Structure formats: structure tokens, C-alpha cells
């Protein structure tokens, strides 16, 4: 066999080798190891690891109300954020494809929060909610500024929604702008010539034409929000009374604060299956409505 520098084997090794090696080390091995740990009672440190079969899963489904409530919270907030982000993002994109003089600058401003990490944004907004709103409340007497935003369950939920929508809108806006600019001008014109109203054109011409952008934006917002961690960590730290604890936080706490490593990996596995299912169903449903040109 020829094993020189240019041989087929060597090439395969040089081009594919590093990717496969790192992928196995960082994704495959932890994934399989996680499956194994999820069936043990390991605490993460001690040398004794006992095989417990599906006990962890049973515990999670039957007894662990904290996990259930973090899952419910994450689902509720994901639905809220996905709807609001996409509505606002689409609305702004729809305005910005008009011939506005300032549109490039506006596009940059709306996108800007997106380049900052969730951790920093959470701290920034903590200041806005705690101190900024106090000043605005003193000025305007407006009831919304007088609430203890991060102190009660309902308002903390909406606080997270506000920050997430503020951050995510720019991202989906950019994708919607690309989608909207690809709708052929003559198609819209033809509809107007036939006497269609602006609203009808939006509903029956534009929306069907940008279904692929909608698929992408829904996928991104669902995926992104379901995994939320940084923002909850820095804005509310899961409080008040663990009411804004996301699934990611719950997994983290289970493994490192409660030292139930096996249970934590079992939760992580359930979380993986749930997110995968939800996104696959969403992509299937919205892809079906896309028009092939």
C-alpha cells in the first residue's frame, strides 16, 4: 500500500481527521456518556456509581415538581417570546422595506442588541427595571413604572419577555427583510391592479411567499428561547421563588448545587428529546406551507 504524504489515506486523515476527532470528543462521547450516567445515581464526585435503570426518569416524571414547573415556565415563556418577537420583527421589516431614507441606520439600531450576550443584557436590564423605572415612575406617575418588576412572579416573567423580544427582534427582522425583498414586485403589482387591498396583498401574496423565512425565524426563536440560561441567570437568577427558572438552569442546579449528577444528565436527555421533537414538528408544519418556485 502506498502511504506517502499524498496517499488517499493521508488526505482523508488531514482533511477529515481533525473534525471527526474533535466532534467525537466534544459531542459523541459526552452524549453517550450522558446516556450512561442518566441511568446511575452518581453524585458527580464519589467513586461509587450504581446502575439504577430508569429510576431517574421515573423520579423526574413522578416526583420532581421543580423540573415540571421549570419546563412549564420555559414552554410558556417560549410561546410568548416567539409570537411577540416574530410579530414585531416582521412588522419592523415590513416598514423597513419601504423606501425610507434612514432605513439602513434603523436596521442597524434594531439589530444592535443582538450582538451582545444574554448575560450582559440581563445585568443592563436589571438596572433599568430596578433604578431606571424608579426615576421614570417619579416623573410620569405611570403605573407600569411603579411595579417591582423583578420582585413578583408575573412581572418577572414579563420582564424576561421584554428583554428577550428587545434582543431577538433585530435578528428575525433581518431574515424577514431578506424574505420580503425577494417577493417579486410584479406579483404584488398584479394583485393591486386586480383591486386587492394592501391587507389582502399582505395576507394572500406576501405571507405565502415568505413562508421559508417564517420557518427559519420560528425555528431560531423556538430553539434559542427553549435553551435560555444566561438571561434568567443575570436578570432574575430564577427568582422570585424559582418561578423564572428555565430548564437549563434546573439541570445546572441539579448537577452542581444538589450534586445529583445522574439525575441532572437524565433531565438533560429528556430536554434534548423534547427540543428535538418540538423543532422537528415545527419545521415539518411550516415547511409544508412553503411555495416551491
Amino acid at each position: 500500500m502506498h502511504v506517502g504524504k499524498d496517499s488517499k489515506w493521508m488526505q482523508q486523515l488531514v482533511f477529515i481527521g481533525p473534525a471527526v476527532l474533535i466532534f467525537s470528543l466534544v459531542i459523541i462521547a459526552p452524549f453517550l456518556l450522558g446516556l450512561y450516567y442518566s441511568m446511575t445515581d452518581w453524585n458527580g464526585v464519589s467513586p461509587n456509581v450504581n446502575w439504577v435503570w430508569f429510576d431517574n426518569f421515573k423520579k423526574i416524571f413522578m416526583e420532581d415538581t421543580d423540573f415540571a414547573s421549570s419546563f412549564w415556565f420555559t414552554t410558556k415563556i417560549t410561546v410568548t417570546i416567539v409570537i411577540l418577537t416574530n410579530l414585531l420583527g416582521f412588522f419592523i421589516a415590513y416598514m423597513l422595506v419601504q423606501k425610507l431614507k434612514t432605513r439602513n441606520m434603523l436596521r442597524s439600531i434594531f439589530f444592535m442588541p443582538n450582538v451582545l450576550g444574554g448575560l450582559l443584557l440581563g445585568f443592563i436590564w436589571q438596572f433599568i427595571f430596578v433604578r431606571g423605572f424608579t426615576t421614570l415612575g417619579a416623573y410620569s406617575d405611570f403605573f407600569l413604572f411603579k411595579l417591582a418588576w423583578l420582585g413578583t412572579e408575573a412581572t418577572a416573567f414579563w420582564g424576561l419577555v421584554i428583554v428577550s423580544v428587545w434582543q431577538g427582534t433585530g435578528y428575525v427582522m433581518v431574515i424577514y427583510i431578506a424574505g420580503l425583498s425577494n417577493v417579486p414586485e410584479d406579483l404584488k403589482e398584479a394583485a393591486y391592479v386586480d383591486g386587492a387591498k394592501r391587507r389582502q396583498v399582505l395576507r394572500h401574496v406576501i405571507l405565502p411567499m415568505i413562508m421559508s423565512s417564517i420557518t427559519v425565524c420560528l425555528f431560531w426563536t423556538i430553539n434559542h428561547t427553549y435553551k435560555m440560561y444566561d438571561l434568567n441567570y443575570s436578570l432574575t437568577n430564577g427568582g422570585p421563588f424559582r418561578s423564572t427558572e428555565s430548564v437549563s438552569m434546573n439541570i445546572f442546579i441539579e448537577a452542581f448545587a444538589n450534586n445529583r449528577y445522574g439525575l441532572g444528565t437524565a433531565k438533560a436527555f429528556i430536554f434534548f428529546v423534547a427540543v428535538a421533537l418540538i423543532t422537528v414538528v415545527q419545521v415539518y408544519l411550516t415547511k409544508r406551507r412553503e411555495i416551491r418556485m
Partner: protein
Amino acid sequence: MSTFLNRYKLHFVEVAVILLALLFLIPFYFVLVNSFKSMPELLKNTASIPEIWRLANYQRAWDILNLPLAITNSLIITIVSTVGLTTIASMCAYRMVRKPSKFNNIIFSLFVAAMVIPIQAIMLPLVKILNLVGIINSIPGLVISYIGLGIAFSTFLFHGFVKSIPYEIEESAIIDGCSPYRVYWSIVFPLLKPMTVTVVLLNTLWFWNEFLLAQLILLKPDLRTIQLAINSLFSEYTKQWDLALAALVMSITPAIVFFFFLQRHIIEGVTAGAVKG
């Protein structure tokens, strides 16, 4: 009736969107003006312009954060991860497209399938494995994790792009006696440039802002990234807003400057990345 709004409606829309944009900017205004105030001034009124633009908060925050160190760490991690990821992913994608053997196809399908695995599902065992290999609590450990987490998506993006490059160009170079590595490096890689820009920008922003894994892997204070430094400052100096805001301004500035210089490419990159994904 044209498909565009008439001039009056257009002005109205423009004013409305500008107002909305100002609303989006208000948080930045609050953070910026208050970062220059003393604590009593800040508590009195957070909306006003500072009486004196004092830099004392910035000096204190700079020392406590140990900002030069944090920025250096963040820069090293971001640059090495991005360069490594881009090189490895583009080479892998190139080979997969040009030599679609059974093995390569299986690996590619695995990559695509792995894109749905959330970081949370692997983060706990990943720490154990890094420990085993002996690179936990080190910058190489975090860099390798970032490359591993990004490899699937970046390879996927390059894969689509390599397919659009005609094979004839490479063929003639091979006939001229060019080695396969030279063909890749001097002919194919330059042609991949539009996709390379997308991959580099998307990953740079991700690595710079990443917190969850950094928090798990880098435990030594002298390895702190900007995100970790800010986090420890907030847990040690609670309610010291004068200090915290100056620290926040300094931490968000690099990302904002980066964005404003490359905004066109970043926005195009986001669009390209999203549509492919």
C-alpha cells in the same frame, strides 16, 4: 396604485419607525449616562445627564475587573476557536463534497443530526471528559469544546458552498502537478471567501458572548473571560451600580465597535447562515 406607499404615508411610517428605534436605544442611554455619575447622583435621578462626566467609576471598574487580562483571555479564546473552527470545518466540508465515500456521508449525516443536540444535553459529561483528557480549567479545553460544538453547523454551511464551486478549476491544477493540499489552500479556500466571512462573523460573536460553558470549564480567576469577570463583579459588588455600569459599558464596547465596523457583513452573514440552516 403602486406597491409602494405614497409620500405622506411614507413620512409617517418613517417617523413612527424612528420613534420605535429610539425606544430600542433607551437602555443604552440609561447605562451610559449613569456610568459617569456618583452613587448619590445616580440614586437621585437616573434619567438626567451627569453633572460632571467623572471617570472615577471607570478607573475602579478597570482595576476590579482586571480588564486587560479579561479582554486578552476573551480575545485569545475567540480568535483561536474561530480560526481553528473555520479551517477544520472548511477542509472537512471540501473533502466530503469531493470524495463522497460511504464513511464521509455517514459522518455528514451525523453532523446534521447533531445540530439539534442542545449544549445542555452534553455539558455535564463534557466536563468529565475534559477532566479525563487533562484540559479542564484551561483555555485549550474551552477552545476545543467551542470547535466541537460549532463543527457541525460550520461544516454544513461550507458543504453547501463547496458544491457550487466547479471542479474543473481544481482538475487543471492537479494535472499541472499541484498537491491536494496546495489545491485546497491556494485555489479552493480563496473561492470560499463569502462563506468564510459568514462563518467567521457568526462564530466570533457566539464565542465572545458565550457564558454557560465558560462558567463550567474556566474556574481559575486568571482565566476569566469578559463574561466571567462581569459575572463575578456582580456577585461581589451587589447594588454598587456606579461601579457595575462602568464595567458594563467597557464590556459591551468591543462587541458594539466590532458590529459597527462590520455591520453590513454581519447582517448579510446572519441572513446567509439562517437561510442555509
